[in-house]
């Protein structure tokens, strides 16, 4: 018997499944933060997390946190360094996988979090943060997005975090996790892998602003196990990050 769960809880589980045991992970905020903790608690106990503010942890934060700089993410850390230290490790090639959120994406996995005129008028977004660095320098990246037609565009207005391009030194987008499904980008272009339970291929096509091939018999994303849900609800007891009303990315 599987308990009911929110789409964001399923996205956290999907994010956790992207982390392999023993990997060095560049952890983002929000859902990836919970995904890292979940992976540690389940299949990847030896994963190590780097945070762009300089924190290195091999255990989840000791209590609920809003940001990576909150005290429970510092206490019990492996090390507390500076931004340039962890970015240097990223540039060296020491980071296996990094997580990035985006406001807009194109079929090559280019992410825009800088500015867009996609809905007619100019909208300024917060900017790169560490996203552009993770996209450039991690061994592979996992992208996390709201799945809406205005966000899935044939071409993004601004490439904040580069996707696949000729001459890329290393890495590039490997997986895209959305509110509707899980997609593979490792071949250089987005391809559906699983759709979340109850989501139809037609629904995904309508929510995607570029042509997307989806097999009619495509598998459903495996739902969270009871253990996975128990972990998430302990780490996010009020559903601050994983309630269905919160916006990701």
């Amino acid at each position, binding site marked *: 018997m599987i308990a009911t769960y929110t789409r964001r809880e399923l996205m956290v589980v999907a994010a956790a499944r992207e982390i392999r045991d023993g990997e060095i992970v560049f952890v983002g*905020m929000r859902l990836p933060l919970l995904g890292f903790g979940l992976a540690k608690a389940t299949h990847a106990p030896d994963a190590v997390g780097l*945070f*762009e*503010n*300089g*924190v290195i942890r091999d255990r989840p934060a000791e209590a609920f946190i*809003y*940001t*990576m*700089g*909150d*005290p429970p993410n*510092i*206490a019990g850390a492996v090390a*507390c*360094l*500076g*931004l*340039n230290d962890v*970015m240097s490790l*990223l*540039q060296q090639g020491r980071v296996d996988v990094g997580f990035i959120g985006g406001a807009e994406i194109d079929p090559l996995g*280019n992410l825009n979090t*800088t*500015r867009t005129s996609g809905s007619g*008028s*100019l*909208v*300024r*977004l*917060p*900017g*790169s*943060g*560490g*996203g*552009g*660095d993770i*996209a*450039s*320098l991690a061994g592979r990246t996992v992208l996390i997005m709201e799945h809406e037609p205005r966000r899935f565009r044939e071409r993004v207005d*601004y*490439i*904040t*975090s*580069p996707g696949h*391009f000729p*001459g*890329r*030194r290393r890495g590039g987008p490997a997986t895209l996790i959305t509110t509707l499904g899980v997609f593979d980008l490792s071949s250089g272009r987005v391809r559906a892998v699983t759709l979340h339970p109850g989501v139809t291929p037609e629904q995904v096509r309508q929510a995607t602003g570029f042509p997307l091939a989806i097999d009619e018999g495509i598998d459903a994303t495996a739902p969270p196990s009871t253990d996975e849900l128990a972990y998430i609800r302990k780490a996010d007891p009020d559903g601050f990050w994983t309630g269905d009303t919160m*916006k990701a*990315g």
Partner: protein
Amino acid sequence: MAFDQLIAAGNVAKVIAAWVGNVAGGSGYGFRRAYEQGVPRRIVMEDHSNFTVGLALKAAAMGLPYLPTFTGIGGDIVRGHPHIRPVDDPFGGPSLLAVAAVKPDVAIVHVQRADVQGNAHLWGNLGLTVEAAYAARRTIVTCEEIVPEAVIRSDPNRTVIPGFLVTAVVEEPGGALPSSVQGYWRRDFEPFLRYHRDSRTLDGFQAWLREWVLDLPDRQAYLRHMGDAAAERLRVRDRRLAAAANFAP
């Protein structure tokens, strides 16, 4: 959020940053109004990624005109950027990007404790605090406590800013609120949500500015306005002390 507040108040002509927003909700509405509509004044935006900001400050801290990096290649941040340009590796490796030094006129950094000379102890995530203090023409240290010189000298490895770099040292408990200070203050998340809500309109921002900045003559007034209950909830009373390090000669 601090950037957004300065921009919304009309105090900023140019922003050099990787991310301007609010950790509670993403968008910084003051930044958006200025960038999109020139309200209350037009701003010039120089976009960076976290790492290029870190390298720009590090270069200045090292007394160099620039530092080379691989981050950003293939993205739009570095395309036509006035202070990031392609550079050849003189040793024949792949080409890089040169990030020009940024030398701030003044850096204001908050630490846990310092002596009257400005020798500063800081612990927890360091972010870009040290680079900023080294790079700036003038550095102002604000601290939770001014302590006797002997306290600072008991642990010289924790002195991340030597006093001769410091123009002024200010004892200002709660000076980083609503952000956290390890061992002193928890994050006060409510002001981030409140600011996000209030700053959505220019009128809302003006009311916020009056209540939380203009009508409060100093930090002590801010703490009183927050209320004793809130201040008590945020104060860290627990102790988890680091093991002593033996510096005996």
